[in-house]
């Protein structure tokens, strides 16, 4: 390999660090106006009357939209593949508001100040409805019905506030537990946490010279934006163009159509370019969050440590709308249960329920993060009850190459899945290597104290997927220029992960050129081929698969031309260092000559190749996580002293970028494990919608993190690659929980592990 497997520089790195105008709002069209949203002050209310006359009189106000003057088409804001698995329970503007911060109206005005003033001048009369903020109460008797509208579709049980439900059985769970020698049962809780991307949601919408609607948006899913906006506004898809510039981080929250629909509606109405962006407060209140969950898990095992039965019972809070409700819920089981595939008896069931709280959605890890917190804490408890080293228990039970799990077939993307045999798995090596690096043997079970700081170590395993089987599809186009350089056009959306670089590496390797010979363009629904988008850990595997195929096809066409020049059969030629080279004679011709000849000289043609790739399966990456913590037993403060992650992402296309994904995910995970949590007033208002009160990790908080990639060769992946984007975030919560237990003998089941919670648990123990 010349390019793949190398730490080549990010193709967009220089532009980013030199501050080039690459982001959505770096350029605004002339004559742009500002769009702003009026938000509900109530958790649940009906809009009885809305009077915009005063606001409309304000000079500079161009347009006000509300439920009375827009189409009422139910749709989902979840940017997912088709068929859309999330319920159609959202409207551009509705007669009802369902959480504090829900959309009431939108204004377009010539300045931000005027838009703000206009929002103040809109008079809204609400009839407050009883609100429900607790998932258990939402599905209890007499709870207010949050989605009582007739038009919504795809809600599992609107009368009982159940957005989605799942019930999957394998074997006979009752028998499974009866036959088990040891059973543990645990309930873990995951609160409301937010993605906090550096760049908040933002969009510019305008009509081009042909009156087509152009939406320039910081989105992970440009093609879904086009489809969903077309539906919501009743505009033909052919009249919409979505451009995705560089994205300043997303982590899943930009897999949502949150602003594009409103900005587009305002642009259509005013015929002016409309700029909209979320403030940080809006980002916290009205973007998306991780689904808060309560997960009860029961594990049964034989005396020898073979896990025999697993029950997982999930209560997921989807907030006011059901975006990603079913698929995140499904993932809690589908991404965790196959890890311990020896268990013949499984029962995975749960509900995603509506509450009058902010809307949950896609967030890196996508349900697996919540699932692994519960599963891996329970496995630790099981090991203790069995009197086994938790590392050995995991080694005895985890899935290996050549094996399968019935779950692959049972749970898919909002429907049944597809049988799959794991073809690559280096998890065992990951466990052994990680254990060595953290010093598992020396440290586990032997808590050491340095004054008030007590140290302990804990571990957790995880797998994820690589794209969504039979749904995720990507296409790529390779265009050869006459100088032997290439354009790579992809619909894939690099949201800061470095995927443009990786795709360029795959193309460069296949075409025998340096990365510099490839210029990547992503993405524009008018000019780049379709891609489902950046989510579900899909880009390297799915989009990379498409690039590989397109590059192979381009290579075939290049060799045809080169063969004519060299007078040798194409099969005897290779592409190397910018040349077509004969294996037999060593004769060679530069690609510039090939390109020039094809374009201008003989048998003219443009060498262009487009290919598609549909995920035939979703090969899981694997990881073993190890944390060493120090707990201050007097204040309850927890410090992560060291964190080790050993991961198998197949063959890493760009090891530095893969390691960066792991490190970033771990730091993000440490944030939710130790301090992140959205807090609510009794009336459902977010109390800490800012970075002063809601803390996220900074560079100064990053502990000693050691990541190591243990390669495996995934036969279905481009150059053996699998995914790495999400898996890292599944480790910190359970590994740290288990390390805290190792240190102080107290189990914590609810993150974040604040000093307060740790101390309370410690005191509870000493009192008991």
């Amino acid at each position: 390999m010349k390019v793949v497997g190398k730490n080549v520089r990010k193709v967009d790195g220089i532009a980013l660090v030199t501050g080039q105008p690459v982001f959505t709002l770096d350029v605004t069209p002339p004559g742009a106006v500002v769009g702003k949203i009026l938000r509900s002050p109530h958790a649940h209310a009906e809009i009885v009357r809305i009077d915009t006359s005063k606001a409309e009189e304000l000079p500079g106000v161009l347009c006000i939209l509300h439920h009375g003057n827009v189409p009422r088409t139910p749709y989902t804001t979840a940017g997912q593949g088709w068929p859309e698995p999330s319920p159609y329970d959202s409207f551009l503007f509705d007669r009802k508001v369902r959480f504090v911060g829900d959309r009431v109206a939108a204004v377009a005005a010539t300045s931000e100040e005027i838009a703000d003033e206009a929002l103040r001048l809109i008079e809204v009369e609400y009839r407050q409805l009883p609100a429900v903020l607790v998932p258990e109460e939402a599905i209890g008797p007499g709870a207010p019905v949050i989605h009582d509208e007739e038009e919504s579709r795809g809600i599992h049980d609107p009368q009982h506030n159940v957005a989605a439900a799942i019930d999957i059985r394998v074997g006979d769970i009752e028998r499974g537990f009866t036959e088990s020698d040891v059973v543990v049962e645990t309930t873990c809780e995951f609160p409301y946490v937010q993605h906090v991307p550096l760049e908040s949601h933002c969009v510019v919408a305008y009509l081009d010279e042909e009156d087509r609607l152009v939406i320039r948006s910081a989105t992970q899913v440009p093609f879904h934006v086009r489809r969903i906006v077309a539906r919501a506004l009743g505009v033909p898809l052919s009249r919409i163009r979505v451009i995705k510039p560089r994205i300043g981080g997303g982590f899943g929250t930009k897999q949502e159509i949150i602003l594009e629909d409103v900005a587009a509606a305002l642009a259509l109405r005013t015929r002016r370019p409309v700029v909209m962006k979320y403030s940080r407060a809006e980002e916290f209140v009205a973007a998306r969050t991780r689904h808060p969950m309560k997960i009860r898990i029961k594990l049964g095992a034989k005396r020898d440590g073979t896990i025999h039965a697993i029950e997982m019972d999930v209560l997921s809070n989807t907030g006011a709308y059901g975006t990603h409700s079913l698929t995140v819920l499904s993932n809690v089981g589908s991404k965790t249960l196959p890890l311990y595939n020896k268990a013949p008896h499984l029962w995975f069931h749960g509900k995603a329920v509506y509450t009058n709280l902010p809307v949950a959605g896609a967030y890196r890890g996508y349900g697996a993060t919540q699932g692994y917190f519960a599963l891996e804490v329970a496995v630790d408890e099981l090991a203790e009850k069995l009197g086994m080293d938790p590392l050995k228990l995991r080694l005895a039970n985890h899935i290996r190459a050549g094996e399968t799990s019935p779950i692959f077939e049972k749970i898919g993307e909002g429907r049944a899945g597809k049988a799959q045999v794991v073809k690559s798995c280096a998890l065992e090596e990951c466990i052994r290597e990680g254990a060595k690096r953290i010093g598992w043997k020396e440290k586990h079970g032997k808590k050491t104290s340095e004054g008030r700081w007590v140290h302990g170590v804990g571990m957790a395993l995880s797998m994820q997927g690589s794209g969504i089987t039979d749904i995720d599809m990507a296409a790529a186009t390779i265009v050869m220029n006459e100088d032997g350089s290439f354009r790579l056009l992809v619909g894939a959306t690099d949201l800061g992960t470095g995927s443009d670089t990786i795709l360029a590496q795959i193309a460069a390797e296949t075409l025998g050129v340096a990365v510099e010979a490839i210029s990547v363009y992503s993405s524009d629904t008018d000019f780049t081929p379709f891609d489902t988008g950046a989510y579900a850990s899909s880009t390297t595997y799915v989009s990379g698969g498409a690039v590989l195929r397109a590059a192979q096809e381009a290579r075939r066409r290049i060799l045809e031309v080169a063969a004519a020049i060299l007078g040798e059969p194409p099969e005897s030629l290779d592409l190397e260092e910018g040349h077509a080279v004969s294996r037999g004679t060593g004769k060679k011709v530069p690609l510039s000559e090939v390109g020039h000849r094809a374009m201008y000289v003989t048998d003219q043609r443009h060498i262009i190749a487009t290919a598609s790739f549909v995920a035939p399966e979703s090969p899981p990456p694997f990881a073993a996580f190890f944390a060493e913590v120090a707990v201050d037993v007097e204040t309850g403060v927890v410090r992560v002293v060291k964190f080790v992650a050993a991961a198998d992402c197949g063959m890493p296309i760009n090891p530095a970028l893969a390691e960066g994904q792991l490190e970033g995910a771990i730091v993000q995970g440490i944030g939710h494990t130790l301090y992140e949590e959205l807090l609510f007033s009794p009336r459902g208002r977010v109390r800490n919608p800012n970075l002063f009160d809601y803390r996220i990790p900074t560079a100064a908080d990053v502990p000693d993190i050691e990541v190591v990639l243990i390669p495996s060769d995934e036969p279905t992946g481009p150059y053996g690659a699998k995914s790495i984007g999400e898996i890292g975030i599944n480790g910190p919560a359970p590994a740290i929980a288990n390390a805290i237990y190792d240190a102080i003998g107290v189990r914590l089941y609810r993150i974040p592990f604040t000093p307060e919670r740790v101390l309370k648990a410690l005191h509870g123990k000493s009192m008991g």
Partner: protein
Amino acid sequence: MGIKRFHYARDVEEALSLLAAYEGRGALLAGGVDLARGLAPEVEGLIDVTTAGLAGISADGGGLRVGATTTLEAIRRSQEAQGYLGGFLAKVMGHVATLPLRNMATLGGAVVSAHPWADIPTALVALGAEAVWQNEELTEKASVEELYRRPFRAIFRRALLTEVRFPAWDGAFAFEKVARNAGDIALINCACGLGLDGEGKIAWARVAIGATPHRAKRLTAVEDFLTDEAPSEELWAEAAHKMKTEVEVGDDMRASAEWRRSAAAAIVRRALDRAAKGVTGDA
């Protein structure tokens, strides 16, 4: 309303006359770290006092004088501050916010904003620091502790804090803070100081606690308890116990009163231990 005018005050007199001229609709601006988080709606004029020639740090016998517009980072790095009480004050600054904010925020701004959760007031109250301010008529001074008992917000609508004076102490201080992560404000903080007499007994003790979540206060009952005793681990534990009964704590979004009570005792014990080691040269 919004800001209509911005002034650079060339000296204290100009700052004061501008402030008077605005009749309550003007505000003094130092680092702006706090003001930027929200201005009173009636404010029309901002008067930048960082140009008034107040910045500077100088040793004053065994004590220290710090001009009001001196930035927190300048204090942290200054030789004079590092020479004062073994660098205690400089080290406290290292606990405050983040470097970019410390490069802007001033000591005067910290004294006047007087956030209950802040660290600087706790240190200043423990140290017995004295605030010096001027209004159009006169110059006044009072200990920061005393200042906070007065209607100080009203005072500084008409006056300019010019300097903070730190007295000499024969002994040592230590500071403790518990926060959620780097750069966060305190869930609880404390500053403790001790001095020993010729026989190794505690000649004086200063114990201040902040972010309880109320503004920094001294706990004289704990100080009295310590005075004339011989330093020992047991004594710190007893003092911590006393602390638990004396300290006034409350709940807020960040932490409960119950946790604060336990944590306050823990950090006071530690700070006393560290201060004592500073005195005896153990640290």
